[in-house]
């Protein structure tokens, strides 16, 4: 085998692997990504029943209902519209009424959103950026303690940590 042939095999092998990787990436990006939607987005153009997406907004005050076994029901709102979310599981520590939250799951036929995960931010002084951005786009004023990432200054001038949402 000549040096050229050997090199051709190596380069060919490399390109094959890269092509396979590229194919996998393109396929996966088409089939696995989840879109972020606000309650207003859901109200105006509801995703198909069963389609996975991420729903973000504020937990509506007074909307959290417990007592149906481990199932919790609450409303996620951007103050213009709201979506009822059902979740079976342990809510995150930072889950609180009036605070930002991102739930991932699917719409059910009855219009409720069945979440399989609920995330709240790990620092009380700010909310998930997607939520903050979606709210800002809608012209919604943020709740107390919720600092928009773009407006964030040094923590000293922001809302004091730990005194928010109580």
């Amino acid at each position: 085998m000549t040096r050229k042939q050997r090199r051709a095999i190596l380069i060919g092998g490399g390109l094959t692997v890269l092509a396979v990787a590229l194919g996998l990436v393109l396929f996966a990006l088409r089939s696995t990504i989840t879109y972020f939607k606000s309650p207003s987005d859901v109200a105006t153009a509801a995703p198909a029943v069963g389609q996975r997406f991420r729903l973000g907004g504020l937990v509506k005050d007074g909307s959290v209902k417990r007592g149906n076994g481990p199932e919790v029901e609450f409303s996620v709102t951007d103050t213009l519209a709201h979506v009822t979310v059902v979740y079976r599981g342990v809510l995150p520590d930072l889950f609180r009424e009036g605070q930002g939250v991102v739930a991932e799951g699917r719409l059910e036929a009855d219009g409720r959103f069945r979440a399989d995960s609920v995330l709240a931010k790990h620092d009380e002084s700010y909310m998930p950026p997607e939520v903050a951005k979606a709210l800002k786009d809608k012209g919604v004023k943020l709740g107390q303690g919720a600092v928009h990432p773009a407006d964030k200054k040094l923590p000293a001038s922001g809302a004091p940590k730990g005194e928010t949402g109580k």
Partner: protein
Amino acid sequence: MITELGHFALLLALAVAVVQMVVPAVGAHVRDQRLMAVAYPASLLQLALVAGSFLALTYAYVASDFSVENVFLNSHSTKPLVYRISGVWGNHEGSMLLWVLILAAFGAAVALFGANLPPTLKANVLAVQASIALAFLLFIATTSNPFLRIDPVPADGRGLNPILQDPGLAIHPPLLYGGYVGFSMAFSFAVAALIEGRTDAAWARWVRPWTLAAWMLLTVGIAMGSWWAYYELGWGGWWFWDPVENASFMPWLAGTALLHSALVMEKREALKVWTVLLAILTFSLSLMGTFLVRSGILSSVHAFAVDPKRGIFILVIMVLFIGGSLLLFSIRSGTLRQGGIFAPISREGALVLNNILLAAATATVFVGTLYPLALDALGGGSISVGAPYFNLTFGPLMVPLLLALPFGPLLSWKRGDAAAAMQRLLVAVVVTTLAAAAALAWQSPGPWLAPFALALGVWVIAGAVTEIAFRVKAGTAPWPEVIRRLRHLPLSSYGAALAHIGVGISVIGIVATSAWRTETVVALKPGEKLEIAGYQLEFRGTAPGTGPNYKELTGQFAVTRGGTPVTTLAPSKRLYDQPRQATTEAGIHVGWRGDLYAVLGDEQPGGAYTVRVYFNPLVRFIWLGAIVMFLGGALSLSDRRLRVGAPRRAKARALQPAE
């Protein structure tokens, strides 16, 4: 006073970095020994100054000096001493100072241990190291100064985020940074080689131990982070394909590829251009990881609140270093002479396959991490790319990698015999088949692919054992000969085999946990029971308690298995005082089959509590594998050939004229 000294030392370090960057590089260019020699004292002074600065900040934390804004914002007088110390790097400013400290330590190590390096190479390497230090010192001094005072002095601090008050997370950043920054050595050597226009086996011999050390630290650093997320976040998972996790995983993948390509370069003088490029890319991914975490563009559990100015500064650093080094590479890589040729079926060929697959895997993680950011920046909407994407892209690329792994060490250099390697692996094939069959028979519900994926882990372990057995002629030579060979086998051979065994152990843990994990969510009243994976858990009610800086509510669960008591699980919900924040502490029972993992949720009307219980089979194997990989690396690093051989050879090479 000490704070001001720390601040002053930081600025002096900046000045020293300028000198260390310019003088030795000029010296190397004009071949002036005295100018090049400046690098030695400069790099030691640099370390002393940065260390002094770091100690000054540590002192402010230990003494709870709240006139320092950074201490005020991130510490509290009631915090235990160990977390006051780890609080130094539990915030943005302090962690950047730690970054530079580790960088300075690596630079000083080259100066101290590199006595036998060719003088121009050493001078250029230290100059490049200094340029990185300069960029980050400028960054700290202008946007992230930890030594700023506040007036009036507050009575007490705001405290550290309680989820960071944890022994695992106290040592996670230093380990991770040791890995990130350790790859700067490979980068500096690569850039120096491009400046000089030559690389040789001695160059690879120098780069490999540094890369190996950085890789070891990154391996345990990532494992530590995963372990922390597992027991602290209370989600029962160990890896979330979170962008910040990916940011540390990409340099690890590239660094793993670099370790293997440097091997080819050292032994066979082949793959020079590729190795140099990989060294640049590995550190570039480290820089990108720093950028992603520190710029605050990510929505992640790990991201700190950040000022946008900092993001732009790090972006500029990143563009300058990555762009500059790649530009240098495109201009100069042609001057690197190509080395030995080899057949596609050979040790080199196997290592090339390893590199291709690891590079492709890195690329898929890269796309999955950056695509949502890019799309959002271009106004394409907010999307997220999660585990399903990575399972579909990263997973399939690992299959051929793991399948091919045992062949590599059994093929000889230059031209290998695949059939002979297959023959030697016959026992491993039998063991693997048995493992797959056993897993198939044992699993009742579960994905049909899982037993085969599990067998891949067994295959890798069996392959590594086969390699050692082959090298010592076990089964073919008489016993005394085998024992003699076992004793004389170089430590680096044991190290490589052990690291591969570690990979196999982790694969088994990952597959078992992902495929056969069970979970249940119920609302329990005291006295009620639940059942999972053969365990019965009886809820005995909750009890309040207090810790040094928190109050907690602990649930009591009596665990039995087939009627015999196993343990008592006590998951709790904590409320910390400073800052006022709730955390979940999972109750975990470690059994030989796997972990029983219980989380206490909210109280329901009527006195019931939401309880979530997981059974994670063999989950400990994941981290155990990482520790075994680390030990394999340590064994290899302690091989005398690797340490002693390099300088000697470098000296001999230095006498030859430059190509």
